[in-house]
């Protein structure tokens, strides 16, 4: 093993700006994917809870596909396979964000479903009793209460997508690991650069995970 004294921090500080730019790109692709998952998840959850099998079957199949196929396979499929067939051609960022969003939508649908189920049935009955329409009851009574239950697992999903977003560099997105690899090869300091990159991304994930914990406690304040 190399002694600790040989750990060269200057190669990290010299390249900190491109590394941080790359880190920002990873966070951005994760955030875009999370946004797609949040938007797709709700209709998916509602369709999955529908009484009509015409809505339920495709939703169940979608969730099975989203949760059963590894993220890396989805990224490769969207980036290489779809382009070969001329279905669509995506850049590395869009392919990564879409892969994260499609995978995340399956998880997000489950989060919405259990959050909506967690609202006591009496709330719906009470809303109907005071004369709210079905859409009003959903919008004014169900959603605010379900959001409180859904937020902590949703933030955990964001952490999961953030970790998944590091994979987008395999299709050539110039993120932090791409930068780390370039500099590591040029300066021959792989240990320093990969350690710095790992510490930076772990820092971001831990902050996001801590925020999820704080949000959970903050949202459950004032509850019995």
């Amino acid at each position: 093993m190399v002694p600790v004294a040989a750990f060269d921090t200057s190669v990290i500080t010299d390249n900190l700006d491109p590394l941080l730019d790359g880190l920002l790109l990873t966070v951005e692709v994760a955030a875009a994917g999370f946004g797609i998952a949040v938007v797709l998840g709700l209709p998916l959850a509602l369709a999955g809870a529908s009484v009509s099998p015409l809505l339920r079957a495709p939703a169940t199949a979608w969730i099975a596909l989203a949760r059963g196929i590894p993220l890396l396979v989805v990224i490769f499929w969207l980036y290489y396979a779809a382009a070969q067939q001329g279905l669509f051609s995506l850049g590395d960022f869009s392919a990564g964000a879409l892969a994260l969003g499609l995978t995340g939508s399956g998880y997000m649908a489950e989060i919405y479903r259990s959050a909506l189920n967690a609202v006591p049935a009496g709330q719906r009955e009470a809303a109907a009793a005071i004369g709210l329409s079905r859409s009003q009851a959903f919008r004014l009574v169900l959603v605010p209460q379900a959001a409180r239950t859904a937020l902590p697992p949703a933030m955990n999903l964001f952490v999961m997508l953030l970790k998944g977003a590091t994979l987008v560099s395999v299709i050539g997105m110039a993120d932090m690991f791409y930068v780390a690899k370039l500099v590591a090869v040029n300066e021959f300091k792989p240990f320093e650069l990969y350690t710095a990159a790992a510490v930076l991304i772990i820092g971001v994930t831990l902050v996001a995970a801590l925020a999820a914990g704080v949000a959970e406690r903050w949202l459950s304040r004032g509850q019995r």
Partner: protein
Amino acid sequence: MIAGVDFTPVWEQRGALLSGIGTMALISVVSFALSIVGGLILAGMRRSRSVPIRVAGFVLIQVMRGIALYVLLLWLFFGLAAAGGFQFNPVPAGILALSLLNSAYMAEVFRAGYDAVPPGQKEAALALGLSRWTWFRTVHLPQVVQVSLPAMGNVFVDIVKDTSVLSVVGVTELMRESQRWAQFYDLPFEFYTAAAAIYLAIVLVVTVAWRRLERYSRRHLVHAEATPPRRRLLFGFALPGTR
């Protein structure tokens, strides 16, 4: 739109894909077994009477849950190996990385399972004169395992899916084989679609088999309230939660 799809090369390379599936299965099972051991150790650390051990367990679990598998693999393979002047063998290194990260998830699973057993069980066992070891082995552990089984199944499914990431450091599992032949034939659509279908099929088989195992673990419970309500078909299982 979809013109000239040709799956015959996929069928011709079925031997390579099957050997990739074999590697995947081997790595998954070994990593899962090691994660159970690591999870028990970490969960034990969290319950230790010594404060430093408890804190160390907490920090280890938090950090390992924050690390992406891809990041850990890159660091081991290109960082640590270069600093130490040695080379990792991809398969053991992949198993090491998978086991380390999933030990932390497994520790959380066991901790929740441990807390879910009512304290009266312990009091009753000790009142009957059982030794602490007998209580743990014959009363406590079976109940913890039974409560933890569904969440353990989720970890196993995640491990199976995560083996695909090992392809980036050269483990010749299913994804690596698919990539190799997709490039060889220049048919990414056929090979990646096949890979997705195979992963999905394996995940479904594992999920169904695990359901049977859970039902088998509850076979002695005759009371209606001891049987949890029927869960939704296949993918209605517990929330992704911490992943």
